[in-house]
């Protein structure tokens, strides 16, 4: 059930290829953020212990980054079949009534699209206002970081995750 079994030149085929590529980019960005955290914390520890000069704002950056890491990588986790689920009952249905199992999975995917839509709908004003009002974390005079980049990454991640649910439905019926 890879995208390649759907005609590459068809509209859905192109959509799936582009979506998977963008999902991979988000995944790589998330991995880079993890490396960034390792470097940041190590620099803070060494700076504090060896040089008497800690890096400012590490707790704030860590708590911001984790949100971005999770939402940027969740789409790839779904694509790779890594989001937690209990598949015992579904497998049993699949072996007897494959069409019913497909229908059930499609309903589940639609629910996924719906809840992510709700999250995005509520998140949008939160994100635009963080941008308009220069929302930040930290303390002025010591360290501040704007919150909008992370809120934008959350939006991108949630949208990609919703699209990956769409992709599951397409792959199920078009391949």
């Amino acid at each position: 059930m890879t995208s390649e079994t759907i005609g590459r030149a068809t509209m859905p085929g192109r959509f799936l290829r582009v979506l998977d590529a963008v999902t991979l980019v988000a995944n790589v960005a998330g991995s880079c953020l993890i490396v960034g955290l390792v470097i940041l914390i190590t620099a803070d520890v060494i700076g504090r212990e060896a040089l008497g000069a800690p890096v400012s704002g590490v707790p704030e950056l860590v708590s911001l980054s984790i949100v971005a890491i999770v939402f940027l990588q969740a789409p790839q986790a779904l694509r790779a079949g890594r989001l937690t689920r209990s598949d015992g009952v579904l497998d049993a249905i699949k072996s007897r009534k494959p069409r019913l199992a497909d229908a059930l999975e499609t309903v589940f995917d639609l629910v996924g699209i719906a809840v992510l839509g709700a999250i995005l709908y509520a998140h949008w004003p939160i994100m635009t206002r963080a941008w308009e009002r220069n929302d930040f974390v930290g303390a002025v005079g010591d360290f501040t970081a704007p919150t909008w980049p992370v809120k934008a990454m959350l939006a991108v991640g949630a949208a990609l995750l919703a699209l990956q649910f769409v992709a599951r439905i397409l792959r199920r019926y078009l391949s």
Partner: protein
Amino acid sequence: DSFNATVVAGHPGVFRWVKMVDEAFVPGVNAALEGSGHTMSFDGQYGGSIAKVGDELETVEAGLAEIGICQSLFDPAKLAVQNVTYYTPFVNDDPRAVSDLMDELHKSDPRMTEAYTQNGVVYLGAPVGIDDYLLMTKFPIADLGDLDGKKIAAPGPAINWLSGTGAVGVSGNLTTYYNELQAGVYDGVIVFASAALPGKLYEVAPYVTRAGLGAQYAGALCANADWYDDLPDEAKQALHTGADAAKEWYLAALEGAVETSFKVMGENGATITDASDEMRAAWAAGMDNAAKTWAEGLDGQGIPGSEVLSLYMDTMRGEGATPLRNWDQE
């Protein structure tokens, strides 16, 4: 009519500023409503069950809760000017004076309430005053030079207070102070007595130095603006009356706790000293003027930072406080 209000706090109910809701605010509102024909029932959701620390304002604004303890200290972008006390150390060490003054300014000056209006909430009152910040260290402090090279943890904007002391400022908070002090990650912390006692910090940092860094304002009760606007006048008034009762209860409880804290810490082997005038003067003189940076930054965003800074300092001086630095006039 009968009204329902969910009250959110990120801190759990053991914290005094959360306890004041059930102990004084709710009974105060109910007492004020007696005979008006209105009733109000409250559902306290504390300890992050609905909103985490610093997210209370957003939750109230969204209408998920009607009332919240809006923490300006932990929400410095949205409640910016409210952090004026944290940028003006060495001004006043009396939490009652700071709370009264901030409460009064919120009631009389629209520049203070603007931040609430812009975020869709209404200031009710009951300021969360914090008692005088002090130093607790693993080593004795005779003069400012003793801080040189030492790792001192401080919360939020208070990390600016360490500039010029030679100490290495590490950002930290109450939840980790004890462990990190014990492990030796920090050599000391900036903290207030009423939290140092329950946190048992004197066990790991027994040298308490009162330097008069100052009492602070950390937040207040706020209500969702749409919900509040739809209330009848008697109910609105009752919320403010309840908030005033909560303020009284909170300050009395805080003052009692501060007294007990010093007594018990002393009995448990803590060495409590007052910093010399020379040390305080040297400390204040050596600090960066973070207040100015902060206020001018706000001015640039169209928020009256410098005006509020002057307003606060002028009113404090008018009430007889003698700041070690006139942060607004440099």
